């Protein structure tokens, strides 16, 4: 009976099976990227605006660097050196308080209009007027809403004069302001035309770029893709590749598949496991460069336990720098204990900048000296960075050997930042990135704390978040900043780094890589810790 009934439905079942097969008809896969374009898979979720005055995250920063030229540029081969860009040359006054930039001729906006020093002065004043986070780049060196119009002046169409309040090292100013997005040259006419409620065109720049650069933003589908198109009348050397296509792919595994299939040339967010697996595979290569980002374990100096610098030093001896560096961090970064990142002016070299190693005995001795022979219990806040948990667990294990019980508390990054900024933590792990290849960049944030009172709310300064203030360190940071002799300056930083490693409020653990997987068809991929040069890449 059953078989009989069943046979009547054979046809239906066969049809269903055929339909199932048909629905997966073989379709040819596209397996090559265009020769004139660079195709990248990248998680571009963080993009929310292209306004150089507002942008504060790495993806848009990289895109802006390739669409909006700044006054000067980082040397591709040596990030601490500065080379001409919009400005072909510059003079420095004797007292080092005035820099006169001579701009290239023939600068043109994508609209076809001529770009001059006047628009550049306006663009830089605009950053201060708008007052987003990036304004700090300028206000830190004495520019403010009241004086910026007198201190950033276009003398004529090709000359821009910057007047400083102090004799800062010129190279630092060139790095911090000249090579930064705050000196991007914006199309004043277009932005003024599109102004909404006196926003200097901020709304317009949420979805457009309007500056002088090798590429221009041709298309942006939020959460989907970006197309950069080479600018026809760029004043500099024309980019080798006509277009840069960026496809939003959030999942690293998917990026890997796309790269292996040849559907993208570059995958930007591969996991360490994928990188290890792809490294050395035919047709592919892994490229890496150290970026100015440090991953550290920060201690709250208001905490009765961690206010003791001996305890903080003991914690440093519980970190297995080498073991972690060769395992978890192999494709993520290198061990680094100094606040000045490798590649920065004034930074200790790799060996001197990381003198620590896992030493349980030493940690135990230090804790005993501090009065914690039997250890203590403490919380460690960690975010969702993939390496946070394994590093914290490794330290937790080592700490248990000296009686220190560390409780790991994992949370969303936004929550972690809020806790740390609000000083509501005992210890926590997070990353910090500086904007200048100079020891001052981090000295001014990770060491210098001008006002430790809670109501000062210097939340942008990690040293303040750790409630750590050392007047002597403060004085040395200031002294180094204004020291005119580079050799003496390096000397101050060298000593400061060594002292801060022993006493500072955070155990710096790793300097991170910028790392990616790439098809070997891509040639001349050029980058350093501060900049990726799309225009130099070729295929």
């Amino acid at each position, binding site marked *: 009976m*059953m078989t009989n*009934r*069943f046979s*009547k*439905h054979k046809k*239906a079942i066969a049809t*269903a099976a055929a*339909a*199932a097969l048909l*629905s*997966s008809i*073989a*379709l040819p*896969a*596209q*397996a090559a990227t*265009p020769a004139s374009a660079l*195709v990248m898979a990248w998680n571009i*979720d*963080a993009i*929310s*605006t292209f306004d150089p005055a507002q942008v*504060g*995250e790495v993806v848009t920063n990289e895109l802006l660097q390739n669409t909006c030229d700044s006054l000067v540029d980082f040397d591709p081969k040596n990030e601490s050196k500065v080379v001409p860009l919009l400005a072909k040359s510059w003079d420095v006054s004797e007292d080092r308080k005035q820099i006169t930039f001579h701009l290239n001729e023939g600068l043109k906006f994508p609209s076809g209009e001529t770009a001059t020093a006047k628009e550049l002065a306006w663009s830089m004043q605009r950053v201060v007027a708008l*007052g*987003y*986070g990036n304004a*700090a780049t300028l206000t830190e060196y004495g520019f403010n809403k009241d004086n910026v119009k007198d201190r950033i002046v276009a003398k004529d169409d090709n000359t821009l004069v910057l007047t400083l309040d102090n004799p800062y090292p010129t190279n630092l100013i060139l790095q911090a302001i000249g090579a930064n997005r705050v000196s991007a040259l914006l199309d004043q006419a277009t932005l003024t035309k599109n102004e909404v409620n006196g926003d200097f065109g901020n709304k317009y720049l*949420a979805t457009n770029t309007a500056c002088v650069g090798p590429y221009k933003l041709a*298309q942006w*589908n*939020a*959460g*989907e*893709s970006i*197309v950069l198109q080479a600018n026809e009348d760029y004043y500099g050397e024309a980019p080798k590749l006509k277009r840069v*296509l960026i*496809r*939003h*792919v*959030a*999942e690293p*595994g*998917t990026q890997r*598949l*796309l790269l*292996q*299939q040849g*559907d993208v040339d570059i995958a930007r967010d591969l996991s360490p496991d994928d990188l290890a697996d792809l490294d050395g595979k035919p047709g592919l290569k892994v490229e890496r460069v150290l970026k100015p980002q440090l991953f550290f374990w920060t201690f709250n100096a208001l905490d009765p336990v961690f206010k003791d610098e001996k305890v903080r030093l003991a914690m440093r001896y519980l970190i297995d720098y080498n073991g972690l560096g060769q395992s978890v961090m192999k494709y993520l970064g290198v061990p680094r204990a100094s606040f000045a990142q490798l590649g920065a002016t004034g930074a200790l070299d790799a060996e001197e900048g990381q003198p620590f190693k896992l030493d349980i005995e030493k940690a135990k001795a230090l804790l005993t000296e501090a009065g914690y022979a039997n250890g203590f219990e403490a919380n460690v806040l960690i975010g969702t960075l993939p390496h946070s948990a394994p590093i914290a667990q490794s330290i937790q294990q080592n700490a248990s050997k000296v009686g220190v019980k560390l409780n790991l508390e994992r949370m*969303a990054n*936004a*929550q972690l*930042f*809020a*806790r740390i900024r609000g000083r509501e933590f005992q210890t926590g792990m997070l990353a910090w*990135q500086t904007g200048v290849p100079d020891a001052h960049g981090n000295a001014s944030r990770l060491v210098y704390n001008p006002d430790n009172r809670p109501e000062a*709310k*210097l*939340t*942008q300064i990690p040293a303040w978040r750790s409630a750590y203030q050392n007047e002597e360190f403060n004085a040395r940071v200031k002294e180094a900043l204004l020291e005119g002799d580079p050799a003496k300056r390096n000397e101050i930083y060298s000593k400061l780094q060594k002292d801060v490693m022993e006493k500072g409020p955070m155990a710096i653990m790793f300097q991170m890589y910028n790392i990616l997987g790439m098809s070997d068809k891509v040639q001349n991929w050029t980058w350093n810790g501060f900049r990726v040069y799309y225009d130099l890449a070729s295929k």
Partner: protein
Amino acid sequence: MADLTHSVPRSDAGNRTKPNPVLVVLSILGKTLLPVFVTLFGLAALTFFIGRMLPIDPVASILGDNATQEAYEKMSAALGMDKPLWYQFGVYVKGILSFDFGDALTTGKPVIDDIARVFPATIELATLSIIIGTGFGIPAGVLSAMYRNSWLDNAIRFTGLIGYSAPNFWLGLMGLVLFYATLGWIGGPGRIDFIYEFDIEPITGFYLIDTAIVGNWEVFRNVFGHIILPASILGFGALAYISRMTRSFMIEQLSQEYIVTARVKGLSWARTVWIHAFRNVAVQVMTVVALSYAFLLEGAVLTETVFAWPGFGRYLTNALLVGDMNAVVGCSLLVGVIFVTLNLICDLLYRVFDPRTR
């Protein structure tokens, strides 16, 4: 979510005086729409207050780690976050009434524009998925019930179990490895190959329809090659649910006496099953399908992530992660509207298909 149980309207046969038709219409509208508004208002209030109470700092996620306190406070004020909660909610509700859901923090654009951008991608995927899920799920469920405990029934139930229990995330990656990376049968992640991406003129936002309208079959094939795998995987999940429910509804019907009567009358087995028994469960199956469709429309975040599908689920999840509450509340309201609307449509279909409610 909204209540999916449906009551059969009581007969008004005893009522002799004819009521005022305007009043009748008003009362029907009131009965249907009032609960809808109350539901949506409750949803908005709940999401809004929960969102504001979460220990997530949206200002820090916009401004980044380097921002000064001054910039922080300025942004906080610009977002209205320095005002009391009830005031913020009032402003929000006032905005909603004029279809202004505020600007999303992450994209800087109005939430409504963002949703208009991401939702078509999800509707397209969900619709194809539900077609696959229903197209295979109902026949599979009916066959399973007909040949209860046979090898066919076991095979269908086992397949359903996989669809039920295997994570879509894993199925998606495995599917990509097999069909895209190894066999090269289908297009990779994303809605379309990059080279075609800017060939599409957005008309409806549904790529399959947009390419079909202009007759660009080359691009249509490409789009189809991209959507078929995620749609099949989501459809597989729906299939598992639909076939299981259909099976149990049908088993109940097939054990009824009227089936025996029909067979005794000499009706063929197939006719008895499809014309008599299935018709009786059609309404219940419809509810199951509608519910599955609603879940698919919410956006499948993991599948969307694996397939780099720029859809609603990923948008909502991203918004949640950075504490972009305007986007979260806007999206939650949309999900609410979807459920309520599908519920209403179900109600209407009941009246059409179920003779008892006529």
